[in-house]
């Protein structure tokens, strides 16, 4: 056993000194390789954590949301629809939701204004998300000026700021009373943005949605399962952002592996020829080349995974923020709860380490099987 381990240690020593002889090439290779693993691992960690967060938080979303559609577009819904929908068997509670958007030209930010059923502030006051407070530099007790539907400034007192930890769901929220909301937007009485339904039995969601569409063909019911599925598909591996990241990483890796698989450099062939001429067996040469591949790929894999974990869960993925932000000025600051499991790591390992190691061995085997003299002369 000791002899076996000693043989491998000697070969690792030789492989390391061989790699260090071509220091510049191998260090740059290791850096690029680590960067690719880092990108793929960061994407996987970020998406999995966001998916988990969305699933846990949005499980309390309304069971069914009913929108009214006019000419294929979302329109205001009459509260009288709610009374009729409430009479459908199985529907518990129907609450009209009042919400809309407000563009703040001073900061260039879009806010979501809403008048919730519960947790309303006092008249003339607002509760704001911590993203709004940050962008507008507001604190509790300050006044916020918003221009109403006819352009007149409305002064609203900040009653409370929602906690920083709620930024992922409420960073851009401005909560006000129903009367303030209706006055601000000249929102017609007896109408709401949409209706939120509570249904006792989750098995009846689809049946109730079908009954709503049957009774009101101009409505569009959105089930809670669809809301949850939205975030599953948004952060799916086939989703826009993920597929771009994985595509870039995959292509870079392909170039890498192609470079390795198409053959060794003249210096490497010469080295193999010399080793064979001084008595190394083909199996020894292959073992040496395998260790060279393993040293590079394993180091890149381990450091890439650790760096990606720190990037996403300790530093809140600053590299992704720009991609997610787009043209938006208000981007929530959030710290994701880590999600990592053996399956993710195993998939990452087999996608990165195994192909590279294989791509290193094949050309070495070709060179190692030819005559040492021919290998040295080539």
């Amino acid at each position, binding site marked *: 056993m000791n002899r076996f381990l000693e043989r491998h*240690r000697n070969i*690792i*020593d030789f492989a*390391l000194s061989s790699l260090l002889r071509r220091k510049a090439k191998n260090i740059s290779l290791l850096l690029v390789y680590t960067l690719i693993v880092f990108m793929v691992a960061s994407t996987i960690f970020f998406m999995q954590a*966001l998916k988990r*967060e969305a699933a*846990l*938080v*949005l*499980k*309390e*979303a*309304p069971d069914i*949301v009913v*929108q009214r559609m006019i000419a*294929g577009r*979302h329109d205001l819904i009459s509260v009288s629809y709610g009374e009729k929908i409430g009479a459908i068997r199985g529907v518990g509670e129907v609450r009209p*939701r009042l919400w809309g*958007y407000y563009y703040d030209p001073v900061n260039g*930010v*879009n806010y*979501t204004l809403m008048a919730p059923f*519960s*947790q309303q502030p006092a008249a003339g006051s607002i509760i704001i998300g911590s993203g709004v407070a940050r962008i507008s530099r507001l604190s509790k007790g300050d006044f916020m000026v918003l221009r109403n539907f006819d352009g007149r400034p409305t002064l609203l007192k900040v009653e409370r700021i*929602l*906690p920083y*930890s*709620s930024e992922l*769901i*409420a*960073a851009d*929220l401005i*909560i006000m009373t129903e009367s303030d909301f209706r006055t601000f937007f000249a929102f017609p009485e007896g109408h709401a943005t949409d209706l939120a339904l509570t249904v006792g039995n989750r098995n009846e969601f689809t049946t109730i949605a079908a009954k709503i569409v049957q009774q009101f063909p101009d409505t569009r019911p*959105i089930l809670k399962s*669809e*809301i949850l*599925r*939205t975030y599953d598909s*948004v952060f799916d591996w086939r*989703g*826009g952002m993920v597929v771009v990241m994985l595509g870039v990483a995959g292509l870079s890796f392909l170039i890498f592996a192609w470079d390795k698989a198409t053959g060794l450099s003249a210096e490497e062939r010469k080295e193999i020829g010399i080793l064979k001429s001084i008595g190394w067996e083909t199996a020894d040469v292959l073992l040496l080349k395998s260790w060279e591949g393993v*040293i590079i790929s394993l180091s890149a894999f*381990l450091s890439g*995974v*650790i760096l990606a*974990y720190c990037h996403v*869960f300790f530093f809140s993925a600053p590299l992704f923020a720009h*991609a*997610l*932000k*787009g*043209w*938006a000025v*208000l*981007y929530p600051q959030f710290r994701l*709860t*880590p*999600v*990592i499991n053996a399956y993710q*790591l195993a998939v990452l390992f087999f996608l990165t380490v195994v192909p590279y190691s294989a791509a290193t061995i094949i050309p070495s085997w070709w060179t190692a099987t030819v005559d040492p003299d021919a290998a040295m002369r080539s």
Partner: protein
Amino acid sequence: MRMSTLFILVTSACVIICGLLPLHARQRQGKDKATLLANAELVKKLQLTDLCLFTEARYTRHPAMADRHAPFQDHPLALEHFPSGSLVTPPHFHREGP
């Protein structure tokens, strides 16, 4: 020190750190549970439907609520205006059609 010893030590340390990552994740999940529950409670009270991730356009701010025509506001073949709209694919159920 032999180079192989150094390599084995560094690699073992990295493997141990990688092995500790799931434990750290589990510990943080326990710690963040209260925050997640508070956020879920806020979602329930305010009847929220979406995460506040992309605030640049209404159909990316509320992808679950967006109507099917939202990204093509000007005409059916209009190009997408917003960067996040090209990163976020439409939800599966929107692609299934009515």
